[in-house]
């Protein structure tokens, strides 16, 4: 076990925070879950179900931010369309949950989801087949984003579409998907999306235990993905991607097939986004095309930028912090939130190019150099 952990946390210096971070993350998760399930409601330490679902949502966002950081921070690919992979994963899960409703829908149709009944569909479209099997839906949640990322990445990286071009293309991708999913003819419920879920794997989605379990699973998966990514990125492959980030042309001239590295990293990142989406949907209870909107994808990037790109942990911290701030500030001053978010974008890019992690690094290194100087004198 310890060996395994060591294997996970080995690698570059920034990786030294990974293990403590994972320990903190998991202990908070377990404590919060226990406080929700075991303590009475009037206890001062009780954590409400509302907070649990909120935290669960934040963790999904954190996983998404992690996915973006992997390609942006380590490979220099700024994707403005990662929301698309997230939403696709979410739709796969949503379709499974929709099929689980069975004949408990408002029209009592055992086969067709409600929105198909009232739009007068006669039979289930082919892409809904098999979605009643959990394993199949989960394979789809990973496979569809992965495949899309592969096709897109393979085309784009092979023809050397880079930099802002690539960013704009990813944005166009998610925008096209947004328009497509808005169409009712697509068979994904149009603007309303998929909602009114009842149960997952036979567990009632409204039960506290189910919610806490989902929350725990999200946290554990986040930890595993964090450690795995850390490991991958500190391996030989990670070093090549760093080289690609810093100078793709030189890496190519040395003899690496840079596009292969980029494609695989892109696919890996998209799969993580898909998983995050699949975990997100049962916790918030709805998936709709709004998740594809380009603004959402840009917001993910800012989480990463705030936390500090190229640090993995920073992405997670950024996502948690910005989303917490959003929850708080939209409640206190809804009008001010967009000003604050906008200013955050500008200020972070101008003054905190390395994000909070960079700031932390600067502070500690200053203290260190100061200490060294004192020791020397």
């Amino acid at each position, binding site marked *: 076990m310890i060996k395994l952990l060591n294997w996970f946390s080995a690698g570059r210096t920034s990786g030294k925070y990974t293990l403590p971070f994972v320990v903190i993350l998991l202990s908070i998760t377990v404590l919060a879950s226990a406080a929700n399930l075991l303590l009475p409601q009037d206890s001062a330490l009780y954590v*409400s*179900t*509302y907070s649990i*679902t*909120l935290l669960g*949502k934040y963790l999904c966002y954190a996983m998404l931010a992690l996915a973006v950081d992997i390609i942006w921070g380590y490979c220099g690919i700024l994707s403005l369309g990662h929301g698309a992979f997230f939403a696709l994963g979410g739709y796969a899960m949503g379709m499974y949950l929709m099929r689980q409703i069975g*004949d*408990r*829908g*408002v*029209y*009592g*149709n055992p086969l067709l989801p*409600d*929105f198909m*009944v*009232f*739009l*007068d569909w006669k039979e289930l479209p082919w892409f809904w087949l098999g979605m009643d099997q959990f394993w199949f839906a989960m394979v789809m949640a990973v496979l569809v984003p992965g495949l899309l990322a592969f096709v897109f990445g393979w085309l784009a990286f092979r023809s050397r579409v880079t930099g802002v071009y690539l960013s704009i293309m990813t944005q166009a991708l998610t925008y096209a998907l947004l*328009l497509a999913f*808005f*169409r*009712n003819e697509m068979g994904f419920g*149009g*603007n*309303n*999306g998929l*909602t*009114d*879920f*009842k149960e997952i794997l036979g567990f009632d989605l*409204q039960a506290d235990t189910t919610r806490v379990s989902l929350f725990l699973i999200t946290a554990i998966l986040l930890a595993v993905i964090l450690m795995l990514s850390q490991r991958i990125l500190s391996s030989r492959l990670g070093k090549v991607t760093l080289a690609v980030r810093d100078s793709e042309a030189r890496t190519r001239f040395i003899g690496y097939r840079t596009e292969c590295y980029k494609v695989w990293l892109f696919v890996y990142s998209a799969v993580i986004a898909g998983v995050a989406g699949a975990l997100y949907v049962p916790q*918030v*209870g*709805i998936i*709709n095309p*709004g998740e594809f909107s380009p603004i959402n994808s840009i917001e993910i990037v800012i989480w990463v930028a705030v936390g500090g790109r190229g640090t993995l942990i920073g992405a997670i911290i950024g996502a948690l912090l910005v989303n917490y701030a959003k929850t708080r500030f*939209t*409640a*206190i001053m*809804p*009008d001010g*939130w*967009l000003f604050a978010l906008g200013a955050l974008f500008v200020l972070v890019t101008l003054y905190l190019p390395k994000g909070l992690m960079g700031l932390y690094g600067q502070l500690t290194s200053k203290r260190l150099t100061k200490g060294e100087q004192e020791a020397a004198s």
Partner: protein
Amino acid sequence: MKIKTLASAIALSGATLIALPSMAADTIKVGVLHSLSGTMAISETTLKDTVLMMVEEQNKKGGLLGKKLEAVVVDPASNWPLFAEKTRELLTEEEVDVIFGCWTSVSRKSVLPVIEELNGLMFYPVQYEGEESSKNVFYTGAAPNQQAIPAVNYLKDELGVERWVLAGTDYVYPRTTNKILEAYLKDMGVAEEDIMINYTPFGHSDWQSIVSDINKFGSAGKKTAVVSTINGDANVPFYKELGNQGISSEDIPVVAFSVGEEELSGLDTTPLVGHLAAWNYFQSVETEENEEFITQWKAFTKNPDRVTNDPMEATFIGFNMWANAVKDAGTTDVDAVEQAMIGQETPNLTGGVAVMNKNHHLSKPVLIGEIQDDGQFETVWETDGVVAGDAWSDFLPGSKDLIADWTDPVKCGNYNTETKACSGQNY
């Protein structure tokens, strides 16, 4: 210095946040769940203000059950998952007694599972596609039979329309409304080729081809009308294009279900004069209640140019009914209030009485108005009496056997009269 102020500001806001719930023990809490930012803020902020005004008025009258009302406003920011989250916050953290909220169908659908799980109470004030009746929701806006069908009847009987363009934004309300209308028109013997259906994306701005198609469709020698379920922002370019291509309201009248006074205040109405809208309320209706309401509203918003609209009236009716139901029930307990709501009567703003039916929908009059150059509507036709809202349309094959009845012995939102079965209940 700056950091200090910031810190104290944060501390202060933190303190108020903690302080709010504790000091509010002996008030009745009214949750307001309308988007204050994002795309829907345009429409929804008005409703938030309406609820706040109603709360203020009620408090002037001494509150309810001897307690003051307290509004709890949250901002779901036009983000649909956030609607569910904020509902949970309102019900479990703030423990509100009632929620007034939502505009779009998707936001209501997002809220629905949460409000049913936690047994909350919500009033939904916007015209919608029907096909729903929840124990925990009261629908004070119009169902399709209270807006679309009377409008079509008016066009057919009064203007002699024989050819129909059903144009809408591609989402569930236009889709359902058009499905219902299509079935209804065919029932009346309108031929397939005399119906043209068109869907456009949200915020569609380039209407050249579609308007030109409508023009062609309308030049077949039969009187043609457009039934528009085009949503919000797409309307301005649509009407502008109609005007520019020289299609006047006498040639091809457009009857809209989503264009109200508020939307008209944002555009130059000259090219729109004569086009129609179907609602349950117009600001121009001359009654004492309405005049009072308008004066109150202008005073509350401190803006003499503010207009009122149909969803505001729906909020007004919903709020008054809830207040009466709470008085009748003597408690704010959701189950008691829900039962007290049924059969509740309160004056509407157009000179009649609104009644809450067993299916949680209202009985309302239907008005057809023509747009005037001052951005107001002139009522040109209205139903003789009130029309009872129909939760399940009689013109859709999937739902014609369904009814909603929340009284004993049925107590079901979607009860199949054929199989005598009740399906899809969440509690």
